[in-house]
């Protein structure tokens, strides 16, 4: 019922339930209670709830945390990476890969978030929360790197 048994387990349980009324009742209880709870009607959000919440987030955004806090932190943390990328670009041929490495390193050192692309939001296949979080954190650069290979 909760998807915890493999096929063999389900078959064994099914065979047992055919001959054990106590377990039948216990299983039926689990099934019906779960169904009732899962069907609990949602309460309506209070009027204006979303507007107030988004206004709070606007206030957070305007405080500049996204620019000041995280991206500086990212820049500081990524300085060794930037240095490695410049070294990589310097010792390999001036291939597309090397040019990319040098560009990414310069971007990191400039403190700009690498690769955030709001246009990706429009892509119809972006449905997973994790992809959205990746967009927020500018990790879509990894998607661009993949496209260069």
């Amino acid at each position: 019922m909760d998807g915890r048994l493999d096929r063999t387990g389900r078959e064994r349980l099914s065979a047992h339930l055919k001959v054990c009324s106590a377990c039948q009742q216990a299983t039926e209880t689990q099934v019906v209670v779960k169904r009732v709870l899962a069907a609990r009607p949602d309460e309506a959000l209070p009027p204006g709830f979303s507007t107030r919440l988004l206004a709070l987030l606007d206030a957070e955004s305007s405080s500049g945390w996204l620019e000041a806090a995280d991206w500086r932190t990212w820049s500081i943390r990524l300085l060794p990476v930037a240095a490695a990328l410049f070294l990589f670009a310097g010792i390999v041929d001036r291939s597309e890969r090397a040019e990319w490495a040098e560009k990414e390193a310069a971007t990191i050192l400039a403190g700009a978030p690498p690769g955030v692309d709001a246009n990706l939001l429009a892509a119809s296949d972006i449905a997973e929360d994790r992809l959205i979080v990746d967009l927020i954190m500018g990790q879509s650069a990894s998607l661009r790197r993949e496209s260069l290979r």
Partner: protein
Amino acid sequence: MASAAAGSRDAFDELVARHQMRIYKLARMLTGGDADAEDLVQETFVRAFRGIGRFRGESSFNTWLHRIALNVIKSYLSRRSRQVQIAPSPPGDKSDALVDRVPSNEDLETATVQRDAIDRALATLPEELRLLVTLRDVQGLEYHEIATLVGLPIGTVESRVFRARQRLRPLLEPLIRRSSAGRYVM
């Protein structure tokens, strides 16, 4: 930089739209329908907004958000030092109390009455059983996610959810009967 920030903010708003009802429902249920539930949800999303850089993807975003919400709600309940608004029924009197409050099939037609009946039943459970069965059956979290959230072994979570459902059965009988009769669409 400004356009990047705007794009990231759009992305976070998308996450809010996806999850706000789920977190609001959780806050309402764990605080007994408290009027402060909206504030708790707002605090949850503000904390998530500030801390999004710390989300590493070891769990799903939903689980991560639930962790924040549970911390916010627990802090609130601890600060206020209050019980869930709907007091537990006296021992041995649970079924009669619930039936008395749901006197007719007509009353069960409304979503509000159905929801209140479920919430009253849940309120009779010990806090930990209520939390676990709410996370599993109402919020739809997987057992391993719940185990991570509450710091219990999966087997312990499973057995407590099992016990919670057993205790809820008699309290939810009117709703179950209506479901069997086909008049309560579930």
